[in-house]
């Protein structure tokens, strides 16, 4: 009987030892597998590209010349979804906004699409933007040359490519699209740096109030002067608009990249 007991406890000990070993090995394997996976995801940063897009249909000979179109304003914050909400809640401000609109230069889109009922120019941004907006068309020649089909139907589009999570995508997109308009007036190159297919990306860290904490080259163009001019343009363009609670994390964490030119 004792012998049987002894055999049994031996076997049990061996079994437990084997089981323990097996479990340790499995855990180590799981641990290793997860850490490999994690290292892969760390390098696959999700890039979300924000672009303004416009749809154009040719229906007639252009009414406006190229020069006239360049001198018209474009306001990238014309996100129709958000504006509709604002109209519903701020109906008493409508008359102010309508008046301001007639005083300022008519925007490209309002002229062609007759969006006068739908547009809202955010009053607090207006004063800063007016001067810079007047130049935005001038600066954006290459993109515009494909869009300048005046006398034709144009509809506003805005495209977000890539996945997004944990914040109001519309609000963030709307904020981010304001940045190029502010930076473009300072983004200049001498002739020897133009048309050379140089690209750089600048990573910016903005605090809640819109102040630039840091700007650094995320991807260099390979040309020192090109990079330094891009950084200079960003620094000169501040202060940027303030960020709301929802999206300030994105600014503070340096999750915004500015592409010069894309």
């Amino acid at each position, binding site marked *: 009987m004792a012998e049987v007991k002894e055999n049994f406890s031996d076997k049990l000990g061996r079994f437990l030892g084997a089981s323990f070993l097996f479990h*340790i090995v499995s*855990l180590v394997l*799981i*641990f290793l597998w*997860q*850490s490999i*996976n*994690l290292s892969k995801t760390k390098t696959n*940063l*999700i*890039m*979300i*590209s*924000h*672009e303004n897009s416009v749809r154009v249909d*040719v*229906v*007639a*000979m*252009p*009414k*406006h*010349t*190229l*020069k*006239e179109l360049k001198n018209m304003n474009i306001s990238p914050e014309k996100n129709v979804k958000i504006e509709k909400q604002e109209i519903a809640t701020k109906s008493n401000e409508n008359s102010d906004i309508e008046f301001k609109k007639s005083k300022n230069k008519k925007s490209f889109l309002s002229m062609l699409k007759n969006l006068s009922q739908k547009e809202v120019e955010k009053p607090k941004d207006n004063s800063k933007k007016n001067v810079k907006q007047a130049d935005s068309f*001038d*600066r*954006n*020649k*290459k*993109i515009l*040359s*494909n869009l*300048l*089909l*005046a006398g034709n139907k144009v509809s506003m589009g805005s495209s977000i490519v890539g996945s997004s*999570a944990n914040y109001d995508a519309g609000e963030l997109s709307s904020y*981010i699209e304001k940045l*190029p308009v502010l930076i*473009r007036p300072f*983004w*200049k*190159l*001498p*002739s020897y*740096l*133009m048309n050379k297919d140089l690209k750089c990306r600048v*990573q910016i860290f903005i605090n809640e109030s819109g102040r630039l904490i840091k700007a650094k080259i995320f991807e260099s163009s390979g040309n020192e002067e090109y990079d330094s*001019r*891009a950084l200079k*343009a960003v620094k000169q363009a501040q202060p940027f608009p303030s960020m709301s609670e929802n999206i300030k994390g*994105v600014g503070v964490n340096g*999750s*915004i*990249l*500015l*592409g010069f*030119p*894309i």
Partner: protein
Amino acid sequence: MVRFFLVFLFSISFVYSEDSLHIVAVGEAELEKSIIHFQSLTDSNDKDLELLSEKYISVFKNNFSFYREIISVSNSNRSFIGQLGNSYKIWNDKNFKYVFNLHLSRLTDEEIELKYEGYDVKSEKEIISNVHKVKIGMFERGLIHKISNDLYEAIFNKKSIFNSKILFVSDKNSKGANHVKELFIMDFDGNRKRQLTFHKGTVISPAISYDKSKAIYSLITKNRGRNRNINLYLIDLNTGKSKLISKLKGMNSGAVFLPGDNEIALTLSHTGNAEIYIMNLETKNLKRLTKHYAADVDPSFSIDGEMLAFLSGRVGKAEIFTMNPSSLEKDVKRISFVGDYNATPRFSPNGKQIVFSSWLDNRFDIFRINRNGRGLVRLTKNFGSNEDPTFSNDGEFLAFSSQRVLSKTKAVQNIYVMSKDGEILGPLTKNFGNCITPRWSK
């Protein structure tokens, strides 16, 4: 057991976390315009020579002011030069990116020495320099244009318009009811206008060869009614001699040179209908390109010879088409879809765009479209009636004729120049009759 538990906790602590970057494009940069400063270093004690030097400087300044979109000409009339070899510092302080020095000095009673240097201030180096001997009493405009082009090329690495010419037709020799239209030539800036033909007839649709040595034009014969013909002539621009090269029945017009200057494309109607042909200037052999019962006129070749643009009524009204000129009716493609009446399509030097005039709001205006039919833009508006656009040799400018109404019974046409995006620079002709059909040498 505890160990198991600890290991288990350890492994679940690696939670997958998402990190995203948001990219937004700032777009293409604007050109930071450099400043170029022209200065005379001619001895100020020689008043005549100093005056001549200043006149030459103003020609340089006027030339470079055409390119106001990419370079600024300093309006200072002073000369800045460092005594101890520190000119670069002085020029840098003045914000000059390029400096050009002109020196004139007397060699003999009959000759002047014209010496010049051009400097890139930022790189602190001389980019051009040369010496010429010129005769006293001659205003060497052509030489100044050549030097301007050399300077432009040294800075921008491509050719400028400064050596180019513009052909045009003017009726300034008309007297009363006798309307006379002759062919003229002028510099790109409207100077040195010179009459080329003396037919005392009606010259139409000229073209200049690529090497600027010859021109072709059509002349409406003086016969009346059915015997009236439109004949084709070739003129040697060096000797001034014209010769008749085609007198087929009907139209021999709208001729343009093909690259190489040995062949021309033109409209002929000897078959009873206006069609486009290629003609060899030596052999007079014809190669037919279009075959349609509607009129096909106004050929324009791209510089690489790969594409032909023309006007055709084949869809019921005058629209612009392109085709492959290697054989008859090959790859004919309609380019313009809007506009009541489109006319005179002309390729840009890089072959990527076509300019044309179109009837809109009771006048003609100039439009530009990509060769694939996209990107239609309007270039002129509220500027009279604008026709016959022609690209400059570098594709940066357009010359065109513009009609202004002076009174109920009087209107005048003059040739104007504008940037390729529609910025009007100004007139090239004035008080020279009605000037039409400009053709810019390529």
